[in-house]
């Protein structure tokens, strides 16, 4: 990789609630080397050009989920998107779409967190087991049934990719529904009935119209669209069986 310094133009959608009525684009010229990520570009701006630009970041290695942004209108983790791929053109960074902007590149994550807390994202054991009894047995194949869905880093890129969430923020949304499926699909768990109440509701699985972009942008291969849509069949069966079964199916 060549180490000669090049200059790239980065436009940042600025929004400072204490002074801006609405977001405005601001342009910066950033020197970069080929191994620099977009995050490093934005860090350069904060360190040397404009200390007031605000954004979240931490691990730099695509696992903490902090640094999601719209980069040229695509939801991406800025730590694993590279400036070299935009040069010699410029690039635009903006806070994740469909979520309210708190400031600059920082979005309001409250809705996401509230939904995460609401779906019982923990094991509700099928059968209780004491520590002395050791671990639950789970074959690699049983683990494979949920492992992919447990890989969500909560970066919210899928929310920025989901127009249904943008149009109706009551929709539980891809990441959280995938997390719900993660627990439902775990061989140790017996809490499906409790969680299905939320999953089968209008704001649950049926809020999804299978756009599929969530899975496209997911940096961890979680495939939330799959987690959601494979549940629609069960939900439909449940819907019809409740008319014929006394007392209803799962409610």
């Amino acid at each position, binding site marked *: 990789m060549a180490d000669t310094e090049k200059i790239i133009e980065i436009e940042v959608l600025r929004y400072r609630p*204490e002074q801006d009525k609405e977001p405005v684009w601001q342009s910066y010229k950033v020197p970069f080397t080929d191994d620099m990520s977009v995050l490093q570009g934005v860090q350069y701006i904060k360190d040397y050009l404009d200390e007031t630009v605000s954004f979240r970041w931490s691990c730099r*290695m695509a696992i*903490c989920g902090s640094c999601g942004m719209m980069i040229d209108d695509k939801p991406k983790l800025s730590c694993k998107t590279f400036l070299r791929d935009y040069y010699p053109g410029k690039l635009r960074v903006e806070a994740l779409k469909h979520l309210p902007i708190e400031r600059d590149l920082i979005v309001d994550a409250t809705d996401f967190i509230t939904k995460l807390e609401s779906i019982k994202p923990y094991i509700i054991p099928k059968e209780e087991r004491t520590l002395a009894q050791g*671990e*639950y047995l789970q074959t690699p194949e049983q683990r494979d049934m949920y492992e992919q869905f447990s890989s969500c880093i909560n970066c919210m890129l899928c929310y920025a990719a989901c127009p249904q969430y943008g149009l109706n923020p009551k929709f539980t949304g891809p990441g959280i529904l995938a997390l719900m499926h993660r627990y439902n699909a775990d061989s140790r768990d017996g809490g499906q009935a409790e969680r299905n109440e939320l999953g089968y509701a209008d704001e649950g699985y049926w809020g999804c119209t299978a756009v599929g972009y969530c899975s496209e942008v997911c940096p961890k291969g979680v495939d939330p669209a799959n987690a959601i849509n494979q549940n629609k069949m069960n939900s439909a069966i449940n819907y019809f069986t409740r008319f014929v079964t006394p007392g209803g199916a799962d409610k």
Partner: protein
Amino acid sequence: MEVYKADVAIVGAGGAGLRAAIAVAESDPKLKIALISKVYPMRSHTVAAEGGAAAVTRPDDSLDHHFNDTVGGGDWLCEQDVVEYFVAHAHEEMVQMEHWGCPWSRKEDGHANVRPFGGMKIERTWFAADKTGFHMLHTLFQTSIKYPSIKRFDEHFCVDLVVEDGRVQGVVAIEIATGEFRLIQAKAVIVATGGAGRVFRENTNGGIVTGDGMALAYRHGVPLRDMEFMQYHPTCMPRTGLLFTEACRGEGGFLLNKDGYRYLQDYGLGPPEDKPRNKFMELGPRDRLSQAFWHEQQKGRTIEGPFGSVVNLDLRHLGEAYLRERLPQIYELAEEFMGVDPAHTPIPVVPGVHYTMGGILADGKTASGLPGLYSVGECSSVGIHGANRLGSNSLTELIVFGKVAGDEAAKFAKATSISNPGAIEKQADAIQARALGIVNKADGTERIAVLRTEMAKSMESGCGIYRLGTTMQETCNKIDELKQRYKKLKVDDKSKVYNTDWLLAIELGYLLDVAQVIVYSAFNRKESRGSHQRLDGYEQRDDVNYLKHTLAYYNGDGAPRIEYGDVKITKSKPGTRAYGAAGVKADEERKKQGAANG
């Protein structure tokens, strides 16, 4: 100022803080817990741990083996009674994590699988592919939601502890979203804020790993112990410092110099074999491997390229399918960040700062000398890592001692009550005024990034893999100077909503305090032990004078006051620390001696 009244406040919501919060909640559901974190819990740096967590599991393993590996690996600077507790409780905590849903990798029979790790005699590292920390953190975070008594303060930045009547009675935090201050009153406070790797330049740590809790406890008179011991991880990405887990080598990866030669055999770690062998070659401990890199560099046998001097981490012989299954994240990092396909090309790596072995002085039950204050995790020094931590002991530490900290803090909180709330609120007001002073200063001239960069560069030259008195002295002077210049810091951003500039300024203050402790502790230790290696006449371990813990005390504007404390030795007398064939020989001799004595 808004006041929240808790029984136990926990600062930091990574693995240790979350485990502690759950422990408090389970010990007594009536206790109110405030869990304060400057980021959302799942962003905490536990998330980046890759390889795994150690616990004796196989029938051919034993607690003694784990104990000996840990104490020997720590070059006998461990608190041996604490290590005994640690190894004895590791397995049940792994099982507890399993019950909470942690997706441990499994064997065909459904039991959790274990993998080999550096410096470990028998395979005992539990793992969830190469995202173990990620899975543990998310499991703990999601499980914590089950407990209504845990009240989270996400994105709240802790600016100080409130010490009144000689004990800790709360913390003051900034709500980052609004810039408003909150006093969280508490009868006991657990600090679980993680390490301080960001005092160095090339490191594996996230941007949030800035030693906050260490600095806060230190400023209140609690000593920081053994801070000179900074772990360099031998296999990091050049320049960014991102981590390639030790599991790469546990799974069979080789380290090669520019001649394609497995150079570790020249540094007492051989002989080389095709398959990974515990405590041999690439599965030696991290300090030795990083030191070997340094020697190769001196001999001109590293590979020179655009990233400086590197060696190769060769995984090619493991094949793509196996790598994708066992090391998926490593595969992705190499491909996406470096454009290297590890199934076909070796990965260029360098050592990078990874872990703070020292920390807030704590006893085996995580209590500090300041009543009501507990510490756990990387910020703490309960004494299990000594002069060099073994890979996969730190994740286990989080949960074993996280539980202890929660239980102990709960006990303490139940036996005490808040004294003098009026005085506490007054103190909180003073703390607020000080924190606002940083942003409201009119005559600042120094830039945050400039000071931070100078600090990191200086720390790297003074406290690297090998150290010299002269360069350490220069670094001492440099950090002293930076601390003075810090007083003239200029914060451009004057707003309240998500003023990250302000937080960076406060963090820089924490970093400088911790940096100063590290370099003064290093300068004063006139021997070589574990990760602290000198080249200026102190190349040997000196058990006569330095089988001691360094204790650094805050001394206002001046340099820290350095004292020394005893090391608790129960059953392992300091011996030769050897690996490879030499290690096998040393083991046999120790056994013979033991038989002769016993």
